């Protein structure tokens, strides 16, 4: 059997993370291996450009358009590509639909895989040990931390993102939003409703 001797180089760096990054960055800058403008561009992308609004648009469109919903579920990667919503950590996507009898919940127990192009970067609770440990064993208890209570008639289906498939929950459309336009529906779709830890709700002020 082969061995892999990856050594613990980090131990020789300052233990305070702020100082540790600074020490690392100064080495990389001295060697000319990073370009600050590229780093700024990466941060700008994930702080300002890519976020849950992308996922919300898809969900609203699926609610408003039955044909689109079918395409989205059956031919997801092509649909996302056509909408320019594919990309890093969303190369292969599966959309799972909540119904009267099934409630879907997404987790990654091994790290923190999350559909970046559709939801942006994950909130820190998604990456927490508690969420990663508990979501597969006691999803209903986890949901109650989010004030989500499910009727006994619904089964919970937890999706553990162990491969490069990323999952997006298609929540049920609230009855009170029926008849609204696709544009109006976008603001009903919450980030948590697309992870499975929440429901869509009326936009604040309505």
């Amino acid at each position: 059997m082969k061995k892999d001797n990856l050594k613990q180089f980090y131990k020789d760096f300052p233990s305070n993370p702020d100082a540790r990054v600074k020490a690392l960055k100064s080495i990389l800058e001295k060697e000319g291996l990073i370009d600050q403008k590229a780093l700024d561009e990466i941060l700008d992308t994930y702080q300002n450009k890519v976020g849950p609004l992308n996922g919300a648009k898809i969900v609203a469109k699926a609610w408003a358009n039955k044909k689109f919903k079918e395409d989205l579920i059956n031919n997801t990667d092509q649909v996302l590509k056509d909408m320019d919503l594919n990309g890093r950590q969303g190369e292969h996507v599966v959309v799972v639909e909540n119904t009267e009898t099934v409630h879907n919940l997404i987790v990654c127990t091994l790290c923190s895989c999350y559909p970046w192009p559709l939801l942006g970067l994950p909130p820190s609770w998604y990456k927490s040990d508690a969420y990663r440990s508990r979501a597969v064993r006691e999803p209903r208890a986890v949901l109650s931390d989010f004030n989500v209570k499910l009727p006994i008639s619904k089964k919970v289906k937890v999706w553990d993102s162990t491969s490069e498939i990323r999952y997006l929950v298609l929540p049920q459309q609230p009855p009170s939003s029926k008849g609204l336009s696709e544009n109006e529906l976008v603001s009903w779709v919450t980030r948590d409703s697309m992870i499975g830890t929440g429901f869509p709700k009326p936009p604040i002020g309505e």
Partner: protein
Amino acid sequence: MSKAHDMGGRLDSRRIDIASSDVKFKADWEKEVFAITLALGFSSLWNLDRSRYARESIEPNDYLQFGYFEKWLAGLINLLGENGIIKVGTESEDNFKKSSFRVLEAKNVKKLLHMGGPTKRDSTTEKNYNLGETVSVRANNSNTKVEKGHTRLPDYVKGRTGKVIAYHGSHVFPDANAHFLGESPEALYSIEFKSQDLWGKCEHIEDTVVVDLWESYLEKFK
């Protein structure tokens, strides 16, 4: 005993503190770690599976104590160390060829992030299981090629029985790719397990857990 990062089903009585943890970054240094890690990921000195392995391989006590981006930072330093970019102590590698290092330029960021790194491969690989079939998961979830190597087979499903609910084609096999043993694509399936079968006691008899598993993680149900 499962590795520190393999957390699924571990008993944990902590509530999920939503109010105080609904942020992407808790400090500016986390933003730096995130951006540097992504940028250097395009250097092609390593792959995504290798970087996951590097994070998982940090000392277990550190893994459990570190925040999310502290894990990223330690993993990144180890990757840079094994590539001879960082030199400390007597363990240093002397294998860095700067001329072959691709520095990520700002003008390429958008294109590269958009491209991502698809793992589905066209190659036809062995496919022994069909939709709806009951399958067993290997009883041992250790990497079969590398001692204490990387795997995406969680401890909590090893030796368990579930049902094939989706087939995703052939995907790069992390257990090989993380150790530069080639992409070795394998058929990838979604397997649905009854919660009751995983945990004995469960919250609701109908509840299930779906896990994506590669061909060689599975065995015929007997």
